[in-house]
């Protein structure tokens, strides 16, 4: 039943993950409702793969990534992780004490390198802190040797070790954040919008570094982002989320060029193409994203969906495998003819 137990390549399998935040009101802080930030999400990541998680703000992509690392405690569901020794553990059920030794295997790269580095710690302290707290390496010499090695790995000079974060530019800071994440030789790295705070010319440097490190260290990435071009470039497989649910899950090219869910198709057509000769392709979606505290009935997308029929407002669609390895949750997925990103070859002709 669980994919992770049958398939050796699967590193992480999330099944029926839910994270609800209570809404409290009044003097007694009574719970009057729930924000369903993540609502029954299931997917898996193979070792060495990069999985992209995309969606608009408030769709639950960050909450999902935090719940996997147990930075947030999930409300329900399983997070099965294959540890280094080959054992399969459910991170959602483990008490904090038992997760701690596993933390070295899962690390995180944050969005804003200006907020995620302590300005009062130098690089040596920042990068070696996980070695001290998780592995308990007391020897300063040993730590500084490993920090030097890590800094070299991410393309910074080891001599910078005594400097403080303010001396570095955004791109360099993000390299420091990456070095810290790699300090304990993790196997899974969750990167939440790692390049969105960076300038265009620096973005490419950081993305290249992450690709190179993946090949060198056989890392598995869960890449959370809203920039669809970056995700297209970086990921093997992409999941699209909408109001706490997965609407589509497919290999990257398949998803971008042959989307099966109307929301994915709308997202793809909304991406501004950096070519003035391909204009007017932008067909925006009407309306706004509904609130996860008060989602619409049936399929959450039906009020904005141009293809909605009666059943869409009555029944919630399930995520189903429509073609090999391509999952979609739409009642009409089988019959719709959707176009994704304009194919460059066709666009050149037209």
């Amino acid at each position, binding site marked *: 039943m669980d994919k992770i137990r049958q398939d050796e390549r699967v590193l992480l399998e999330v099944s029926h993950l839910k994270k609800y935040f209570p809404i409290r009101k009044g003097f007694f802080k009574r719970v009057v409702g729930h924000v369903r930030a993540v609502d029954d999400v299931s997917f898996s990541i193979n070792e060495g793969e990069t999985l992209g998680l995309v969606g608009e703000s408030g769709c639950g992509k960050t909450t999902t990534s935090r719940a996997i690392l147990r930075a947030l405690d999930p409300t329900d569901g399983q997070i099965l992780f294959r540890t280094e020794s080959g054992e399969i553990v459910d991170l959602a059920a483990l008490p904090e004490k038992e997760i701690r030794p596993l933390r070295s295997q899962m690390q995180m790269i944050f969005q804003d390198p200006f907020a995620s580095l302590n300005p009062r710690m130098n690089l040596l302290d920042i990068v070696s802190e996980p070695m001290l707290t998780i592995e308990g390496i007391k020897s300063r010499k040993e730590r500084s040797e490993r920090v030097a090695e890590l800094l070299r790995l991410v393309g910074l000079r080891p001599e910078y070790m005594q400097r403080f974060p303010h001396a570095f530019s955004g791109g360099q800071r993000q390299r420091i954040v990456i070095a810290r994440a790699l300090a304990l030789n993790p196997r899974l790295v969750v990167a939440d919008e790692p390049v969105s705070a960076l300038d265009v010319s620096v973005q490419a440097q950081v*993305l290249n570094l992450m690709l190179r490190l993946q090949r060198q260290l056989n890392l598995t990435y869960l890449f959370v982002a*809203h920039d669809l071009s970056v995700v297209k470039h970086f990921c093997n497989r992409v999941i699209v989320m909408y109001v706490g649910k997965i609407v589509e899950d497919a290999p990257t090219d398949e998803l971008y060029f042959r989307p099966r869910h109307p929301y994915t198709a709308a997202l793809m057509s909304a991406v501004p193409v950096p070519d003035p000769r391909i204009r007017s392709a932008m067909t925006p979606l009407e309306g706004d994203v509904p609130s996860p505290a008060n989602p619409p009935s049936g399929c959450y997308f039906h009020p904005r969906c141009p293809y909605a029929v009666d059943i869409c407002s009555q029944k919630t669609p399930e995520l189903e495998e429509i073609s090999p390895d391509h999952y979609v949750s739409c009642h009409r997925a089988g019959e719709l003819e959707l176009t994704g990103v304009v194919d460059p070859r066709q666009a050149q002709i037209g």
Partner: protein
Amino acid sequence: MNPTEPLLSVQNLKTYFFLDEGTVKAVDGVDFDVYPGQVVGIVGESGCGKSVTIKSVLRLTQKPGRIVEGKILFRSQRVTDADSGSDVIDLTTLDPHGKRMRSIRGAEIAMIPQEPMASFSPVHTVGNQLIEAIRLHEDVSKEEARQIAIERLHEVGMPNPEQRLDAYSWELSGGLRQRAMIAMSLSCNPHLLIADEPTTAIDVTTQAQVLNLLRSLQKMHNMSIIFITHDLGVIAQVADYVVVMYLGRVMETGPVDDIFHNPLHPYTKALLKSIPSIYSPSGTELPTIEGSIPHPFSRPSGCPFYPRCEAFMAGVCNAKDPELQSINERQSVSCFLYEEKQMQPS
């Protein structure tokens, strides 16, 4: 209005910030023209001076910043030049707090700020803020202003404008808030609209809505728009003419098609190559621009881009300042690669 004469002409604009630590040359000799009905995109990364340029145009630079040199010629319909009586006014000569500048700002030159949440007052209704803007520039009664405001909100595609007028900005969603902001900036039929990164804080589907709206409003009113962004995709979709800036200087200008399909400056070329394309195969390395943007205090001498440039010529690029010069009838570039032969090292 004569479409062959520029509506706005920025000439050799220099805006410096005089700090205790030294002078930051945020805008250091910028030239560009905006013609009636044209959408000019200014692209550049952080610190390139794009925001300071437009703040200078609106005369909103704050101390310790000051326009030290240059002209900002604007063809006004409300104000005439004090001496010559001409309708072309040099905005740099006006008192930024004076009556004449204030009657241009907001009425003839309007602006859509980046963050619509931070730009609305949370304690006044959207309608009151719109009505205030209208009554500041037009001699109309409160009731008439309210009608204009409803009309404007309707124009930007706001559902139920009569009710939304009495809403507070925090009651609106991101997309609607940005629409209300656009309605406010259009309230006095400006000839020039300045949009400072109007879509960076919002999601792609909303971004597409806002861009489409701006495109159609531009056609409807035949306005000129200066569109500021770091997103080359957005520029390709909306601009007619592009100004590429780097560290306070203009690197290249030209029609949007030439900039994207025949870029001349090494910076423009490298920038275009380094953006991840939706068409490129997954998992491949991108060509990058080495290094990072220099700190404003440690600005390189000569061409500001030379330390990161692939075509760097020692003794030339780091010695002199390149001039912005026209290469063909459409594009202008400031790079020694395109200067006369005698400028080359012997």
